[in-house]
């Protein structure tokens, strides 16, 4: 059995679902951010796989590199905010950070 496009897409789809699941079930803000990383990387796998098997050009690879850079920038800002939250509340549990009503 050779590994084809479908296999890559399947892995990406599973990662994507796991990311959504992590965001839906985890209460810890850091864990939620890890879920976001899973989603971003599932899209990256898609992009690179499509680029290799379907389009046969480098567009997808380039896009994936941009996504990796942006994910790093986003993580830096997000962790800084989480740190700020921890300083104020001594917790990063999303359930206990509820001063704003809803």
């Amino acid at each position, binding site marked *: 059995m050779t590994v084809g496009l479908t296999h890559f*897409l399947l892995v*990406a789809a599973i990662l*994507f679902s796991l*990311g959504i699941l992590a*965001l839906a079930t985890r209460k810890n*803000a850091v864990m*939620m*951010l890890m*879920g*976001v990383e899973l*989603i*971003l990387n*599932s*899209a*990256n796998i*898609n*992009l690179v*796989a*499509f*680029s290799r098997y*379907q*389009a046969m*050009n480098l*567009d*997808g690879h*380039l*896009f994936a590199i*941009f*996504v990796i850079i*942006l994910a790093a*920038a*986003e993580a830096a*800002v*997000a962790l800084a*905010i*989480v740190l*700020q*939250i921890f300083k*104020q*509340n001594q917790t990063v549990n*999303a359930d206990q*950070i*509820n*001063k*704003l009503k*809803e």
Partner: protein
Amino acid sequence: MPDIIFQSTKHFWPEITLALTFIAAMIFEFATKKRTTGTGILVLLGLAAALVQLPSAPSEPVSIFGGMYAIDPFSTFFKYVIIVTGMVVVLFSFQSQELKKESGHTGEYYCFIAAVTFGMVLMTGSSNLVMIYLSIELVSITSYILAGFSKSLRRSSEAALKYVIFGALSSGIMLYGMSLIFGLTGTLDLSGIRTALASGHAVTTGWSFAALMAAIVLMLAGFGYKVSVVPFHFWTPDVYEGAPITITAFLAVASKAAVFAVMIRFFYVAFFDNMLASTGVYSSFRNVDWSMILAVLSVLTMTLGNFVAIWQDNLKRMLAYSSIAHAGYMLMGVVVMSNFGLSAIMLYFVMYFFMNLGAFYVVMVIADKIGSENIDDYRGFGKRAPIISVGLSIFLISLTGLPPTAGFVGKLFLFSSVMASQFIWLAIVGVLNSVVSLYYYARVLKNMYLREAPDGDESPIVFSKVTSAVVILFIIPNILLCFFYQPVLTFAQRSIAILLPGL
């Protein structure tokens, strides 16, 4: 290759100016140790420099940087709205007490305003999926920082946390959608996607059609999140309430304008055929009924926004729900996807700029004075601070859409564009929603004029001359635009040209 770059740079000067402003402001902020408003003034000048270059944009659509970016009248119109909003927000920030309380570098705050304006301007012209993603992320990441800028306030950090988690989720979902579109069409270029879909061999089997549907739904979720369309709106009230009020105003006006621009460009260029351009109505490829999906979203958005706003006690939070409702009204213009609809959205953004920024300004100065945004604390304001109260009343009436205010004209054109495309029921829902919105706006007016201050205190609350002058400056266009909207309308009608392949 260098030729292309030089040719493109010629049209790219407003954006370059904004980028340079950001860098210059950063260097200036690091170089000066003292806390001054110098950085703010520098950013203001930079934004003004970008603004004066906009009129020299070519009147015909041009594609630059190898199809990455489009310069057309449509994006130029939104650039005006965004840059002017940025300047107004910088001016508001000079006066905000909330920011003055922050220890440390308020200069950074102005740097980020320059960066976020740059990102929004890039969004209006992006014509490639990479460019769309990059500009949206530039705006998002910078707004996370700005939303949490009042570091001493717990609610500000909480708003930033909620914003960053949901924001990252939505851009991740959108990215997944983009990757599917890339897989189906083999290109990231919007006009390339259009060509691939039009020729028909991109989507051949049922499976690939299902994948295309999924991709569009994911993209729509991403865009919908950014303009706070129900059911992706849940972050809006918390972020708008927690963020510094200047940033709330910025997000409510400029960010919405930028996302509407990029959303309209995405759907219009990639998914709509221009066969029926003679009637001004566009048909979608493969007869996918996008208009129905968008119409349902639009109805949900305005209804939920208006009904939940009724229960709010915090005026800032109420304005957040009202901005959700307004996103719903503006989405109606996207539903019809006609030239009339597009110009109505653009006209509405100009009106929305005046009424919303005015309202947020009044909330800001009152919060600085009495330390509260609670609607109950506005009791007796009619007598104690007449000019401010009249101002707030006019802004709120304008937001409702009653004559003789700018909001009336905005809604009139929006609703008639919907009627013109045979969406009568949608227009009726819109009008009914405006009636509902009158209820909660009127509650503020009732508190200000008909009820006494809680402790019988009738001593006037004195606002500075500058504050009164700014409020009056916002009242004038709110009234005048009801009668003299023609120049704005003509400008909007001239600005609907969007870059399409083959032009």
